[in-house]
């Protein structure tokens, strides 16, 4: 069990590996409060499998992930995480960072379940639950967030990938988000930034109530910013409630005029029966080519809006 401390110590403890060729952690239980990271530098192959991670009393000022993989410069690191179960303390806590990787070759995250977590506490630093920064390749597959409360504070993002527009390719697929019964402020749940290619597929969002007042600018749930090509396919929003902030957007895809191609298909939205302002369903901006197909909504619900700005070609 984790010691109880209120703030991040100036010199924190760690479980540290430098330049391992092949590092494996399996069939393990890890309890963390943000002050005691597993920190891995300049590794070649990292495998983390069949691990239970318990998040307890997460320190609001922690900037360390449970597993923090870091390189000062690009390194041929591949991390593969699979069969990870993440559980939380019953009381609200700041959003934890679980896996953080920077400047590596590839990050593969698959079969991760996060359950019963209430991140309804403010943090002094940006909180990305799983983040990959500047990978050549990143894959997030079969990740479930069940009964999770988040987004009440800015920079609480469940999945974040930030890349290099000339080389980074990312697939984000089979993501299932089930919100808790609490009202939440809409905040980015899945965010990709400046990648070469990004592919979102099979994303389901259920029972999310975004009707808490939002002071955030351009609140967006699924965000793809400025990739050269993006495909967003088979996204379903079930029983969602939007708030009174009419700038709320469920899916936002921006590009850069000269090169961006976006293919958005099979989007289904079913709103709750609660009164709400009309959100943007899909917002595209600065696309060169944008292809829409098979959008639908449950008819008894409110209308939703599309906005397409700066588009050169709509198919």
């Amino acid at each position: 069990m984790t010691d109880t401390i209120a703030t991040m110590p100036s010199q924190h403890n760690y479980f540290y590996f430098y330049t391992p060729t092949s590092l494996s952690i399996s069939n393990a239980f890890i309890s963390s409060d943000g002050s005691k990271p597993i920190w891995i530098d300049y590794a070649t192959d990292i495998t983390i499998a069949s691990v239970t991670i318990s998040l307890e009393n997460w320190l609001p000022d922690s900037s360390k992930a449970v597993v923090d993989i870091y390189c000062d410069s690009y390194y041929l690191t591949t991390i593969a995480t699979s069969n990870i179960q993440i559980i939380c303390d019953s009381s609200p806590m700041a959003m934890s960072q679980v896996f953080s990787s920077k400047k590596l070759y590839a990050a593969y995250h698959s079969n991760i379940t996060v359950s019963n977590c209430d991140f309804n506490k403010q943090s002094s630093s940006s909180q990305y639950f799983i983040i990959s920064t500047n990978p050549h390749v990143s894959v997030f597959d079969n990740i479930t967030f069940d009964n999770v409360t988040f987004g009440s504070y800015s920079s609480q993002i469940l999945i974040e990938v930030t890349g290099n527009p000339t080389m980074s390719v990312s697939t984000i697929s089979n993501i299932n988000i089930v919100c808790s019964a609490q009202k939440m402020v809409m905040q980015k749940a899945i965010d990709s930034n400046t990648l070469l290619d990004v592919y979102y597929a099979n994303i389901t969002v259920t029972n999310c109530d975004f009707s808490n007042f939002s002071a955030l600018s351009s609140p967006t749930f699924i965000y793809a910013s400025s990739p050269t090509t993006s495909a967003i396919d088979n996204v379903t929003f079930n029983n969602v409630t939007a708030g009174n902030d009419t700038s709320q957007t469920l899916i936002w895809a921006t590009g850069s005029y000269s090169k961006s191609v976006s293919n958005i298909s099979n989007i289904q939205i079913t709103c709750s029966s609660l009164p709400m302002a009309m959100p943007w369903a899909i917002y595209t901006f600065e696309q060169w080519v944008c292809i829409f197909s098979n959008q639908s909504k449950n008819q008894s619900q409110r209308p939703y809006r599309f906005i397409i700005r700066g588009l050169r070609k709509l198919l």
Partner: protein
Amino acid sequence: MKLTQMKPFYPKPNTISILLFISLLQITSSLDLIIDASLSSANGNLYLNLQSAINALLTDSSLKTTTNTITLLPNCVGKTQTLSKSTTIQGAGVESLTIQYQSPPLSVNDLSVCNELPLLSLTNNFYLYLNNFAAFSLVGLSIRYRWNNGNNYFWADYIQTPISQVFALT
């Protein structure tokens, strides 16, 4: 002395055998130590605790042998292992070190299972530092960091294949 005056050294067959035997001993040398919490004093390869077993592997801070194994018996469960000093274990790039529990469960997926593992508590500002091994394995241990006093860390530099399995980090 002129080079032409030097006599080449041709070892006798017996000398070659001895040299081969010695180098073979160095390559394959191993230490297999056991921690038995029921002991009142160390005896042969049996030791009372982890710190004394680690000390037995070392000359100064360097490993004496290539293959090193420390096995904790089930009677270590419920007795906390601590370091009595900051400990450095130095290799030369070819050694392996395994610290293992003799009867680990198949997996540790719950905090309650941690109580069934031998516990190593990093506390009192003491750290465990490993450097330059071919392999390091940690099997079936629960490791607890205690924040209270600062530098209670585990640090592994240049370990080619670190493996941690069936363990808990709390």
